[in-house]
């Protein structure tokens, strides 16, 4: 008769084992107040060369509704954006430490353009900054200008020297921002010393210093010149 008692005891222990093994109190946490994130405040205003526009549009205290963007270098190219308030202030409350691109842009609305004689205008500025703590920066947006050749994108400026690197595909994305024809004939493009391969461990600082600091001109690993004599 002892066996059934023992069996019952074992079964009771096993049942207890199973019954006790459900999840107990489980809480879902909301994000906590502060991490390593740093706040960046940006004041956006019009450049002093466009003081008349600021006066006319009532933007002397700051530019409203400008789009401000930040991008942390070394990460996927994805902007964080914010719009300025009526006083021209934008705030990014939680940037992690690092080197950032900061840019701001504003185009006039139809109503605003009408106040300036129906001329379309746009304004922009940008800089790079290192965020390591709360900071405030000011961007003075310059107005658009006619008459410039704009190089919007550039990829690859070296001359292929071997068959290993994929340096054959070069391109430039350019805009003619003027109201007349601009000829590229004779124009020279070069890349200054600034890429990582110009620096240690590939080249010692001392080795490239004379080229960086040469007051007589600009040194480049490669120069490319457009053909033509002036109007071809």
């Amino acid at each position, binding site marked *: 008769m002892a066996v059934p008692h023992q069996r019952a005891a074992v079964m009771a222990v096993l049942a207890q084992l199973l019954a*006790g093994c459900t999840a107990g109190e489980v809480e879902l946490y909301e994000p906590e107040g502060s991490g390593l994130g740093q706040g960046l405040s940006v004041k956006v205003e019009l450049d002093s060369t466009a003081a008349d526009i600021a006066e006319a549009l009532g933007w002397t205290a700051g530019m409203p509704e400008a789009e401000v963007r930040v991008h942390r270098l070394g990460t996927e190219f994805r902007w964080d954006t914010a719009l300025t308030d009526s006083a021209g202030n934008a705030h990014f409350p939680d940037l992690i430490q690092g080197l950032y691109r900061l840019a701001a842009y504003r185009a006039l609305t139809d109503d605003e353009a009408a106040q300036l004689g129906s001329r379309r205008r746009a304004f922009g500025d940008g800089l790079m900054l290192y965020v390591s703590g709360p900071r405030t920066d000011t961007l003075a947006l310059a107005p658009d200008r006619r008459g410039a050749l704009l190089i919007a994108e550039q990829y690859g400026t070296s001359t292929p020297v071997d068959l290993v690197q994929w340096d054959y595909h070069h391109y430039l994305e350019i805009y003619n921002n003027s109201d007349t024809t601009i000829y590229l004939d004779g124009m020279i493009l070069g890349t200054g010393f600034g890429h990582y391969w110009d620096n240690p461990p590939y080249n010692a600082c001392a080795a490239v210093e004379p080229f960086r600091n040469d007051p007589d001109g600009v040194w480049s690993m490669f120069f490319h010149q457009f053909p033509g004599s002036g109007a071809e």
Partner: protein
Amino acid sequence: MVSVSRSVSRALRLLVAVAALAPAAETARAQATDAPGTLNGDGLPGWVTDWSPLNYLGDLPRELPGRSATFSELLLMPAPRLGVFWTAGNPAGLPFEVGDEHVQFGFGLLNASGDCRRPLDAGEFARRRFSGLGWGELGEWGGVIGRAVVDRTNLKEGAFADVLLPYASNPFIVMDTTGDELGRTAARLEGAGGWRVARLGLGLSLGYEAAETRSIASPVPRLDRSSASGVAGGVTYELLGDGRLRVGVAGRWRRAVERIQIYQAAAQTRLYQLEGYFEPEPLDPGTRYDRRLEREAWGLDLAVAGRALGGSFAGFARTEQMQEIQFNRLYESDPPHDRWDADGWTVGGAAQRPFLGDRLLVTGWVRYSVLEGESQRWDIDGVTFRANEKSFKADLEVRVRALQGWEAAGRLSLVRDYRTRRDVLGRTRSVIHNWQPGAGVEVVRWLGSRFALAAGALLAGYAPSGGIPDPVTLGPVTQEYVAPELALQVTGGRTAKVRLGARWQATAGLAFWAQGEYASLTPTEGTVSIPMEPTGDRSSWTLDFGALLVSGP
């Protein structure tokens, strides 16, 4: 001369046994031959593996619930041993504690599958393994032990992890979205030797492990090469002769290196360097991605063992330090690196006492580990992630020996984990504690003096509580690849294991054996509904067979 000749002969047999790559279902506890995502990977009892110089230092990897509950290995293993060597892993204790010779070889299969898993566990896991284990006296004054393992593992169905150990304490994990099948070949060789001079014991253990993990066929080939080296050296002294009181001190060092290469040969993948609960930036590395992991750890042990009150006891205390750096710019002399630093300590002990003559043997083990770790990203000043983890484990085994051809062992185990992991950058944390009680029984029936059958069953529970980040507050990548593991950690569950085995004693010193085990993990429905909680079950089975070079019952 006869004695010397016999000793040399025995030593040669042992060395041959150790060097030949071959047994049982033991799982090495180092990185490459570990089997995360399975339920019954650890086939050897802890006292057989605690000495390994390749064991983790300063790390408490997270396992699936119930995996740590093990059988007593009644069919293959002698009665549990304890001491400065067997409990604390000090090789200088070997010549005093090695006891009878034991050598086993084996071949094993392991397969695990099922949906109840973590996101970085492969959906299906299949392993073939040859291994060998042996120990014995070396002459009159020495003792040796060694183990060799070679295995081949296939990871299928969502093998997203690009590192060997995706659930270590360190939050820096590399993964990508390819998930194609991986094949891993790993080899491990480790051994220890100890010698005694009067009451003084000296010992050294060495271990080396290497592994290569490759895509089987994938438009995004992935390659992970790793190696780990470990060494432990120690000294013991018998304060009271005849094993009544022995003390020891040992130092240990372990270094592991892992290199990851991913090629976007014919398709694109999304790479993520997970770093806790903070949303990682997707990486599009172009044609090739490289990352190197360098892990270095140190430990210092104090141990004591002896006999009292008709039984024996052992205890130890160990401090541990681990530092890991990870970096992508492989060809720079001092590349910027992410860094993980962990400090910890472990105390443990064991006691054993026979009752009813030697018919009943009761053995108990306890172990408590504490770890604190901090991570730093290369591009950010300050600590970005902190872990505070504690783990307690206690086992009690009762063996009944040689009762009219029957042998039996009952085992109770209790695990208590407490892990707080705080992501400073992500501004959130998880605080998870759990109880894992387990109970198992094994029975061996000798049919005559040559043939034995064995059967065993084990049940383990998992009862968690605590808190995790609300998944909706996490980023999309963290939701997909991190949050489900947190949900599984706070979901109750139970693990059941059954095993059958047989042993044939061919000659007085040679036996053949076979053993199969099935394990399943089932989440239990609690009163709390947890977002992303796991569904389905997970099961794994092992089939092992081999030879034992020991005498019969």
